[in-house]
């Protein structure tokens, strides 16, 4: 038992079901282990300031460990260091800090790999037509946060496109790319971004989306033009509505991640640390603990490992 142990969970926002699930996972595990849990979240995506204030509060409140999905992975490092100096265990969830060793450990999806999987799947799905595909990409927002860049660039690499600078999107020269737009990771932004891309080239037939709400919005835009059946949409996340959309043919394939697992592992690690002082270890061959990613699709292709929609629904969140 971890009596008297208190822990903090700090997420980017509190509105994305992904983080809601994370909180549920952490709360359930904390309850089980008798850890007192306080949760905090930024006001908007990218809200570093509130996260800094939250860490300061955790320090003031005498927490033993902090689980953090950083909004601005490099910018938050100094206050994380402050917390660690006070003997607090800091674990990054979902998004690594920059540098990654600024936290004691990272429990995360390999976002680059998540992108790669859908890229490879899309290329295999198109077959020969991949060489003259027309690709539209719907990213999160213009500040290009790392998670967004990793997924985007992973997708392009998986599809077989030269990346240019892998640390940013938008500098590729491949003519198959129609354009990048932003979606705020929401259905309204997804629809508008898709419309804008279609307005500049109506021939788009492959669409990458940052997450499934954006994909659903993009689908509405295509449907309005009667093009929903000849465009392939791929996405990342694996939320339940997203997986259901894979089932219904809205999305071709999505890379699923496992927030619940990240959070419950995190709470366990804190409880253990409080008891024994032992810190968690990374997955072999990586510098973080990989919580895994699964490609969800009912149209598996050769050479790309995937799970069925049924399996995806069983493991989905939100």
């Amino acid at each position, binding site marked *: 038992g971890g009596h008297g142990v208190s822990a903090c969970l700090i997420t980017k926002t*509190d509105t994305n079901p992904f983080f809601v699930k994370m909180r549920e996972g952490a709360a359930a595990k904390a309850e089980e282990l008798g850890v007192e849990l306080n949760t905090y979240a930024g006001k908007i995506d990218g809200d570093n300031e509130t996260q800094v204030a939250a860490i300061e509060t955790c320090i003031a409140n005498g927490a033993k460990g902090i689980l953090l999905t950083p909004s601005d992975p490099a910018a938050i490092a100094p206050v994380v260091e402050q917390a660690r100096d006070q003997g607090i265990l800091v674990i990054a969830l979902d998004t690594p800090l920059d540098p990654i060793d600024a936290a004691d450990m990272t429990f995360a999806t390999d976002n680059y790999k998540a992108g790669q999987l859908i890229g490879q799947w899309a290329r295999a799905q198109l077959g020969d037509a991949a060489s003259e595909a027309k690709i539209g990409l719907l990213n999160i927002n213009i500040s290009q946060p790392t998670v967004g860049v990793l997924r985007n660039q992973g997708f392009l690499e998986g599809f077989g496109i030269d990346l240019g600078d892998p640390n940013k999107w*938008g500098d590729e020269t491949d003519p198959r790319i129609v354009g990048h737009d932003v979606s705020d990771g929401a259905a309204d932004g997804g629809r508008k971004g898709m*419309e*804008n891309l279609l*307005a*500049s080239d109506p021939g788009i037939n492959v669409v990458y989306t940052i997450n499934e709400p954006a994909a659903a919005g993009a689908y509405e835009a295509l449907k309005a033009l009667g093009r929903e059946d000849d465009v392939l949409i791929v996405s990342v996340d694996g939320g339940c*509505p997203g997986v259901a959309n894979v089932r219904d043919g809205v999305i071709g394939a999505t890379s699923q991640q496992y927030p619940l697992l990240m959070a419950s592992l995190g709470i366990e690690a804190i409880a253990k640390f409080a008891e024994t002082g032992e810190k968690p270890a990374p997955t072999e061959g990586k510098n973080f603990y990989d919580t895994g990613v699964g490609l969800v699709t009912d149209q598996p292709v050769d050479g790309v490992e995937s799970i069925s929609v049924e399996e995806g629904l069983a493991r989905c969140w939100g």
Partner: protein
Amino acid sequence: MASDRTNDNYESALSGASTDVASFEYHKKGFVGRLHDLLHTNPALVPLIVLVAAIIIFGIALGSKFFSPFALTLILQQVQIVGVLAAAQSLIILTAGIDLSVGAMAVISSVIMGQFTFRYGLPAPMAVAAGLAIGTAIGALNGWLVSRVKLPPFIVTLGMWQIVLAANYLFSRNETIRAQDIEANAPFLHFMGYKFQIGGATFTLGVLVMILLVLLLAYVLRNTAWGRHVYAVGDDPEAAQLAGVDVHKTLMSVYMLVGFICALAGWVMIGRFGSVSPSASTGMMGNIQSITAVVIGGISLFGGRGSILGAFFGALIVGVFELGLRMAGADPQWTFLLIGALIIAAVSVDQWIRKVSA
């Protein structure tokens, strides 16, 4: 000295005073002169000129791709939500207020319409009615705090924005209702997304509702007593009160109507996005977008001056810039930058026309 002057009963000299209304030879002639007068009496036309100019410039630059029924009606579809919110925002700003909660009210109303149908199994039309009613109720609460407790509208609606958005997440449990489920089980929620064609151009009921709403409000503001009271309250609330306008009643009716219109925007949102999501970005950005449209349209943030048609044109101007730049292939970061510059430019042109026609 003064005393002998006052002997003169000068007021008796008035008997022969002229009784004609003053009139002067009228000078301006020709097309420019007439345009001049038109703009002088209808300043709402100024943003229309800017809008037409923007369309023409993008049309020339981008050719038929932009100047097509498809692209032009796409703009209408893209601005329908902001357009409806801007109509609501105009009302508030005309009363010298500001409403930061318009987007939040729209989102929570759409969530209520969705959840009442799916979670509580209400028939869709009743759920829509419930959404509209709750939107109106939130508006009423805003109005009461502004007009009775006399709090600044900025603070009231800032607080309400946070409260409503948070309540929205708590109530919806962050769940999204998918378009496919709505399609299958409650197509009435998609009513505002219903499409029809007019000569190659696609319209939706949502677009139609936006246009009718703007026209209706323009009529009401211009031609009814209530409309004049809205202006009077925004112009100088104390003077309006002294002149016999029931300021409280007017403010309450405005805020309630605004709540209702925002809920309507929520219904339009379901039609446009298909799904119902508590994290729709309208909740965060609806307020700034609608205020921008209103100000570009020439309505004064100090209240009492401007026309709702201007706000509508303002929303369209932003829509034209956004789509035009994206079609021209500008990268998103540059688009963002250029839109900022274009908004300033549009309002400068607007200001210049006003000065010339003053």
